[in-house]
């Protein structure tokens, strides 16, 4: 008994995820009817349009008038066997629940509260999604001013001595800015992401000269894999910024993409200073200070798109360099470039 009631309640909550104007309303009303053991149950949104279960009753007109009254008074209206209860989500009227039949007053009240909670949950989920989207947009715009300044300075220095090279770097810079700032969909391909990395590394090589040694290798099998925008570039920027820039002498950065079973594995490796593994853990958990927001952000975005299995893996130790591994499935429903 308890199992079936709980199951029904869960079903109702699921169907109401999209709100009272969504596609699951009829099914939710059907569930409520069975739960309350009522003759007819309806759910109406703010427009006053009621969705009935099992179908429209003979007293349809009366009930509609009742719904209108509730929408104006925001109070419970009617009396058994036909009652209409307002649904307040976050202290704001969101719709009306109509119950016709010999249901107990307390049962109707509890049912309306349950519906309200389901609607609230749906709203929270939607806003969490929006927050994630906003985060993605925020990350996209994050270009280090320091890097822009350095790159432009180097290009300026080369204009008279090596005009051809400076022209090429200028084009790389244009590509880089275009990719980072352009309006585009949520997902791109590994090929494009690697192209962006290459333009970035070309500029960094101009800035850092021989101090930066770079290897980029990607297996052709994974070039077409779709992934969220700007997942790899922050990792490479991190490798250069924290692994190479702060120290003297030559540093190596290695980027590789390979196929492994049905997954694509991309690793970014530097032989720089490395860090304490505990610190890396802090950074991934988002407690590493404003300097390393990028890594935690990438980790969170990967998890939200591909599920908890697919976060970043950071292998590091003090003085031993850092290796960051991204693992993404070659196919994930809904993840398409463009």
């Amino acid at each position, binding site marked *: 008994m308890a199992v079936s009631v709980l199951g029904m309640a869960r079903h109702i909550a699921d169907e109401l995820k999209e709100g009272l104007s969504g596609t699951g309303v009829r099914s939710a009303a059907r569930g409520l009817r069975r739960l309350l053991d009522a003759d007819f149950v309806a759910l109406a949104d703010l427009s006053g349009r009621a969705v009935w279960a099992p179908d429209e009753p003979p007293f349809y007109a009366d009930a509609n008038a009742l719904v209108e009254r509730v929408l104006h008074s925001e109070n419970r209206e009617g009396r058994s066997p036909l009652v209409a209860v307002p649904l307040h989500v976050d202290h704001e009227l969101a719709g009306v629940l109509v119950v016709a039949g010999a249901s107990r007053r307390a049962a109707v009240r509890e049912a309306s509260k349950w519906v309200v909670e389901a609607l609230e949950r749906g709203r929270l989920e939607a806003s969490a999604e929006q927050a994630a989207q906003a985060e993605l947009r925020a990350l996209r715009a994050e270009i280090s001013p320091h890097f822009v300044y350095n790159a432009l300075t180097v290009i300026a220095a080369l204009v008279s001595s090596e005009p051809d090279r400076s022209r090429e770097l200028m084009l790389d810079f244009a590509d880089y800015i275009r990719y980072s700032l352009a309006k585009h969909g949520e997902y791109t391909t590994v090929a494009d992401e690697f192209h962006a990395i290459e333009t970035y590394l070309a500029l960094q090589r101009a800035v850092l000269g021989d101090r930066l040694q770079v290897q980029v290798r990607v297996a052709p*099998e994974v070039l077409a894999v779709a992934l969220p925008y700007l997942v790899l570039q922050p990792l490479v920027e991190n490798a250069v910024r924290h692994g190479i820039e702060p120290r003297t002498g030559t540093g190596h950065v290695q980027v590789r993409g390979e196929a*492994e079973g049905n997954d694509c594995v991309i690793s970014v490796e530097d032989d720089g200073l490395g860090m304490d593994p505990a610190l890396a853990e802090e950074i991934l958990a988002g407690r590493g200070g404003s300097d390393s927001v990028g890594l935690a952000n990438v980790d969170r975005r990967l998890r939200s798109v591909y599920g908890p299995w697919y976060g970043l893996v950071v292998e590091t130790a003090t003085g031993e360099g850092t290796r960051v591994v991204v693992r993404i499935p070659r196919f994930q429903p809904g993840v398409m*470039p463009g």
Partner: protein
Amino acid sequence: MSAKIWALSGAFAVIIATFYIGWRSSRTASTAQDFLVARRTVRSRRNAAAVSGEYLSAASFLGVAGLVLKDGADALWYPIGFTAGYLALMLFVAAPLRRSGAYTLPDFCEARLGSRALRGLAAVFVVFIGILYVVPQLQLAGQALANILPVPTWVGATVVTVVVIVNVFGGGMRAITVVQAFQYWLKLFAIAAPTFVMCLLFIGNGGLRDGQATTLTEALPPTFTQNTEIDVRTPVLLRVEDPVWLAARGETDGEPAMGTVYWGPGTHEVAAGTTLHFSKGSSVPVVAGAPADNESWLAPASNGGDLFSTYSLILALFLGTMGLPHVLVRFYTNPDGRAARRTTLHVLLLLSLFYLFPIMLGALSRLYVPELLVTGQTDAAVLNLPHSIAPGILGDILGAVLTAGAFAAFLSTSSGLVVSVSGVLSTDVLRGRVRDFRFATAVAGGVPLALAIAVRQTDISLTVGMSFALAASTFCPILLLGVWWRKLTWVGAAAGMIVGGGLVLASLVINTISNLTGGWAPSVFSQPAIITVPAAFLTVILVSKATPAKIPADVAQIRLRMHAPDNLGLTRDRAVASFGTAEERSRLADGRHRKE
């Protein structure tokens, strides 16, 4: 003995080369200066070679020649069908499938119909098809190794399985496109060069030695070109057209035989362990069911019942190719739908070129190694032919090259299938990560190995034909209707898959039982596609019609993505927005260093 060393070193060289190329292209690093070439896409031609390399299995390399030797013109449908499957793939599926973004067949089911349940079912059938395809490869590998070394057949199967698994574990399949493209050219060379040499020898010797052999157009059975001793290892039923005198030691026609035996026209039974001795010039008895004389061998559809199974075979091969798990994953490497279609066109050319040679070898075998017709082990024709045509060192070298090609065929197809099957196993069945992928690889290699050792070997092309029939009856309806029919539902797709796949598996079981108990099952059970494919299509359509509520809500969007031409911009805009159009780029960069 030297012949064996030659052949063994040929096989060994192929294994080493496969390891080396996989290892090199996945490990070595480019120099720091040329890192901008990383964003290279795979050219259609190389990708096509990779597809062909993975596709040309032992069934193509050894089996086709064997079937031509035995069945003549009727067997030509195998190479034709193996190739024509790509025509169907190119016309109906390649480009939309690529644009759908799916990597494996279960991926396509989920992307198009949005059902996890269907995905699981598809995964099960991928595993079935994969195993059904690997088993005969391993059996033939066992037979090929037993030809070279005095070892039981399970050794060769185990060696190939171990090499494949070790290679996958070691990461050698990470750069799989390069490895498989190499395998295609290796196989083409390994079959083309010996064929040319043997044809030259054949013509140079003035045709048939001593003019004693039956020519291929005469209405007479083939004849032995030298005194021949044959060990019969499995019981066979032979048909004799011309009366023949022979010496036998063992048991024939149910009676112990020792010394000279006379066989009149009719069928004769030979028990296992019997040794037959034929003298030069006597005519060759042929396993029952195959055309006995050369004229009917050369004529298509020599008996009426064949027509039905021929059509069935054509249907299975034509529609089955698109449902093979290891073929589709290769198409994912193409950058867009147009490239996928171009790749398929190249595959058609490469396969057509390759299949010329097994057919010629089959015809030569009819002249030079007719003794295989007596034992029925015609799959060995390609490997036995060189010694028969050119005894001595030349034959040894040719044999080594052919053995190397055969091992390339075992390895490439088995690796491709094992990787595909274990990918599906680890994502859909085991739901886990790297360790699980290794575990899945071990399972995907181990299970077929166990089956290969346990199950009795039949003609490889027949078994492979069965896995084509399974693919044609399960995935073909879903691919074709999924791409072209708006009203497909996941319920219909699942029902069709169960009906089609169930019928094929049932007939496989019935056929196997019948083979073990006297071959009573009619030929439709060995070639069931002509019944199962329409049944599967019909089920999908009817059940989909009955469940219109299950049509996915985003069907219009998915179909737009699959069918909108690439240069209309639905998938290319993005690149233009991020990097500019091709003309814009080349104008700016003067074609330097931006290798697109």
